[in-house]
């Protein structure tokens, strides 16, 4: 399951139902559509396997292809994040635009925070949390909470998130797209030690950001 793009259960069930219905009715147009859909799903659902490390409950991988631009303590951002460290990642402009599960976890929910967009070029994010961004809340099996904040800039589009609340994703499964040098702020509980440095290039499922 590690090398798959996120597809909701609804989509898979709908596909199966349409296929069964079309076979039952022997509608060749529908069967043809299902075949095309199946081929496309196979091509895109089965991603190139970039996971090089075996999953371990204590390890946190990068959620995007990009570069670490800042590492810091959550208390600098707000009291709410006092028990977290954060890693700011800039999305690599010409790399895969996906956002991937950094570990197998429950997708709790995602919220849109409305505000002003950031201006580029930026060396680091402002402390102000009022900029336009999206926040994803992930819950690990051990009930640990992780936050991923996605800041779109003037040259990047708003992130598109696929899962719905309560869905479960495996390590490396793609759950959204985020293009154009956007900035990702990843909050990790303080019991994890940060293993990356500023300036380091990271890839999902390959580079370990933090370890318990």
């Amino acid at each position, binding site marked *: 399951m590690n090398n798959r793009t996120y597809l909701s259960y609804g989509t898979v069930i709908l596909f199966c139902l349409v296929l069964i219905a079309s076979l039952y009715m022997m509608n060749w147009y529908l069967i043809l559509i299902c075949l095309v859909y199946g081929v496309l799903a196979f091509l895109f659902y089965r991603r190139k396997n970039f996971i090089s490390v075996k999953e371990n409950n204590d390890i946190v991988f990068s959620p995007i292809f990009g570069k670490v631009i800042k590492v810091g303590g959550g208390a600098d951002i*707000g*009291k*709410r994040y*006092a*028990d977290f460290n954060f890693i700011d990642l800039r999305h690599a402009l010409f790399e895969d635009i996906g956002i991937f599960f950094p570990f197998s976890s429950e997708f*709790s*929910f*995602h*919220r*849109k*925070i*409305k*505000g*002003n967009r950031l201006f580029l070029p930026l060396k680091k994010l402002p402390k102000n*949390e*009022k900029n336009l961004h999206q926040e994803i*809340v992930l*819950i690990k099996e051990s*009930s640990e*909470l992780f936050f991923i904040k996605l800041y779109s800039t003037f040259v990047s589009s708003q992130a598109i998130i696929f899962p*719905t*609340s*309560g869905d479960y994703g495996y390590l490396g499964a793609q759950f959204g797209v985020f293009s154009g040098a956007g900035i990702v702020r990843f909050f990790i509980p303080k019991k994890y030690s940060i293993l990356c440095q500023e300036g380091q290039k990271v890839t999902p499922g390959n580079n370990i950001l933090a370890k318990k």
Partner: protein
Amino acid sequence: MKKLSLFIDTSQCLKLGLIDSSKKFISFTEISDKKCGDIIHTEINKLLTDQGLSLFDLSSCFFLMGPGSYTGLRFTQGIMDLFKMENIECYSFYWFDIPWLLNPQNNDKYIFMTNAFKGESLILWIKDGEIEQQKLILNKDVPKFSETISEKIWKIDGDLSNAFDRDYAQVLQRVEDLKSIKPIYYFRSDIEEFTPAL
């Protein structure tokens, strides 16, 4: 017909969520850079129309009744009254109810602390979901106070928000089961609210 609910919290900034029948958020919007009163109606409408819904498709609405911004909570009260007139089921709870809602069997006393504006902080002692004692102290005295107590302190901009993010479905389900309806929690009496801080 899906059983959908709305979640409204204006105690800190405007937070709106659309909830499905399993009490999971379908969508959630937070706006902190604009005045609540300027945008609350349009944002509720936008949240619903984005999902192809109207106000009449809602079966219930959950309100967070504070403690928090006096003006923000007044808007919550107004919207709640409006929904009641449209026969939408309304449920409400407080921030400090959350630890008890999540763990009703736990009889341990806990402390809730939040910024009460005007240079003061509100401190509540909660046991079995009821307020045992309440106190307003100056913000400068908070570190000294924190050292003197042994109970767990819950703060909105800390553990409490994180607990809600983790287990909001459980909280909302329990509020619905209890048919909880609470009045707005004000830090002070109306007369004191109209008096500027020294």
